[in-house]
């Protein structure tokens, strides 16, 4: 798994269109799942656009895995539908060539070699066995193809799972926490791979709880908490929808004075607070806004950054709301629904 892999070497020759000649799609409509009295997923509706990476985010127990498993026909919905290219997974004429799925609880027979594991899948789909070695090579398991999976590390199993998903050179990729067990190099590789995969007009839906990682990878987000949809749309647009998520961190020897200055000059623009003896966090502002203020007041700046936690804050805000009352807190989310395409068709211009 080298980061310099030329992914297209491993792509199939097929054109990137589904059976009916349209772009691949994933759509969830009113999807609901009850496990006994527990509502795991509640009336979930969203669609995933081709050509970009869509992050499926939510805390543990939010219903992400259940949703993905319903999409893949492994779990039956209580009501509602999950469609791939307009049909239910089990009605797909050639599932292995249409959807590739990386799932957490997917298994391997410990006594079977990696190559044979993939061959059992390839045999069902009528895929040539040479493709098995090709995908093993792609994920960096070429040298381990003949080893039994029981001896594999977690990271190797995760890569084998990805190899299985790619076996049919699918047009839709669904991944449940693909970064689990991978080393930083592997995570960087996955990020590059997903970007490349999506850029060829295919669908990528990837669930994650690693928000910093997701922020670097995804274009769109679907945010879930307690089985409810909390937000859906382009990440940038969602972030702009909430002022509270924008913050600037400044490292300065005059930290105390900076706080006073900011509170005096911009009382309306949120709170500035000391985070450490020489660090100030100013929320609801931008470097462009407070930079001049600091220059004016002759405050020495060692370092100034827009915080990378914006998605994290967005996420906490949304998911905590979901956990508390079953409804998103604050105003922005209603407006996000209108601005983004949670409830409206995708904007033509693709502004993100």
């Amino acid at each position, binding site marked *: 798994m080298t980061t310099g892999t030329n992914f297209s070497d491993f792509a199939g020759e097929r054109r990137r269109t589904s059976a009916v000649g349209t772009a691949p799609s994933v759509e969830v409509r009113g999807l609901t799942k009850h496990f006994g009295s527990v509502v795991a997923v509640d009336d979930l509706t969203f669609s995933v656009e081709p050509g970009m990476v869509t992050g499926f985010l939510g805390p543990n127990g939010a219903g992400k895995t259940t949703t993905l498993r319903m999409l893949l026909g*492994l779990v039956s919905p209580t009501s509602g539908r999950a469609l791939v290219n307009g049909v239910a997974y089990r009605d797909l004429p050639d599932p292995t060539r249409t959807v590739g799925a990386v799932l957490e609880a997917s298994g391997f027979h410990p006594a079977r070699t990696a190559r044979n594991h993939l061959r059992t899948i390839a045999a069902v789909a009528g895929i040539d066995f040479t493709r098995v070695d090709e995908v093993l090579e792609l994920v960096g398991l070429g040298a381990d193809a003949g080893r039994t999976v029981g001896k594999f590390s977690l990271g190797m199993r995760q890569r084998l799972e990805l190899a299985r998903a790619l076996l049919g050179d699918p047009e839709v990729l669904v991944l449940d926490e693909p970064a689990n067990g991978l080393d930083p190099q592997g995570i960087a590789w996955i990020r590059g791979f997903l970007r490349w995969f999506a850029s060829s007009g295919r669908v990528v839906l990837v669930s994650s709880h690693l928000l910093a990682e997701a922020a670097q990878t995804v274009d769109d987000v679907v945010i879930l908490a307690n089985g409810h949809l909390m937000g859906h749309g382009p990440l940038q647009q969602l972030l702009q929808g909430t002022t509270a998520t924008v913050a600037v961190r400044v490292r300065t020897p005059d930290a105390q004075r900076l706080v006073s200055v900011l509170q005096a000059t911009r009382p309306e623009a949120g709170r500035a607070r000391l985070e450490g003896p020489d660090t100030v966090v100013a929320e609801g502002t931008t470097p462009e806004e407070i930079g001049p203020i600091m220059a004016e007041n002759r405050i020495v700046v060692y370092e100034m950054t827009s915080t990378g936690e914006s998605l994290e804050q967005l996420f906490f805000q949304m998911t905590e709301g979901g956990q508390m009352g079953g409804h998103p807190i604050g105003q922005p989310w209603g407006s996000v629904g209108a601005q983004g395409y949670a409830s409206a068709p995708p904007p033509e211009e693709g502004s993100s």
Partner: protein
Amino acid sequence: MIRLLRAEALKFRTIWSTWAILIITMVLTGGLGVLVGFAPHRHDVEALLFPARGTSSWFDLVFSTMTVSVDLALVLGVICVTGEYRHKTVTPTLLCEPKRGRMVAAKLLSSAGGGVVVGVAGGLTGLVLGIGLVAGGFGDTGRMLTEYRHVFPGVLAACVLYGIYGLGLGALLKNQVVALVVGLGVIAVVEPIVEGVVPSVGRWLPGQAAEALESVAVSASRRGGGGIFSSTAHLITWWEGALVLLAYGVVLAVAGTFTTLRADVT
């Protein structure tokens, strides 16, 4: 369906359990054959159980050990479906064949095929043993082959049907240990009890049904005395045995498809 069957065959071939089952079949058939054939005995007293060496009845007794293949075919059928749940390979299996009825049908056919392989493994071992015994000076080839032909076809047929029966049990019970305990426990424990208390019911149970099938040629040609098949009067006919075994397997598999296998895979 051809692709599914090829994949199932590949699954069997690529785990050691399958080979272990075949080796156990051969070792048990050969080992037990030698053991019962050469057990120390006084055949003037217990002629019925231990016939004189080299006689037709003696070959019949030796070849009866091929019937262990039947139980191992059951194990293979159980593993075919429960192994998928045990190792969670059911997820990738259902991802490439999301129609569960088709998956079960493929497994049912491949378990029957697995039964053939186990039956042939036991049968070949029996044949090699028979040839060895003749070469060792016990009986003649004609007599040996006659008895072999009496036993082997029934054993092979029972293996096929037990493979299907095992698959059905596995599909319904899902848990490998439970399915094996129930499958073998019914034959070894439940059946003898039922057989003792209500023979009219007991003879329709899987073990007795298999015995009816295994003893088909024997009971037709038996001219009295010796062998484990000496008393077949209480059994149902061979075709009844075959049908009832097939029914057990298919009914259980269908029940499993609509209950256990329909359930969510999480």
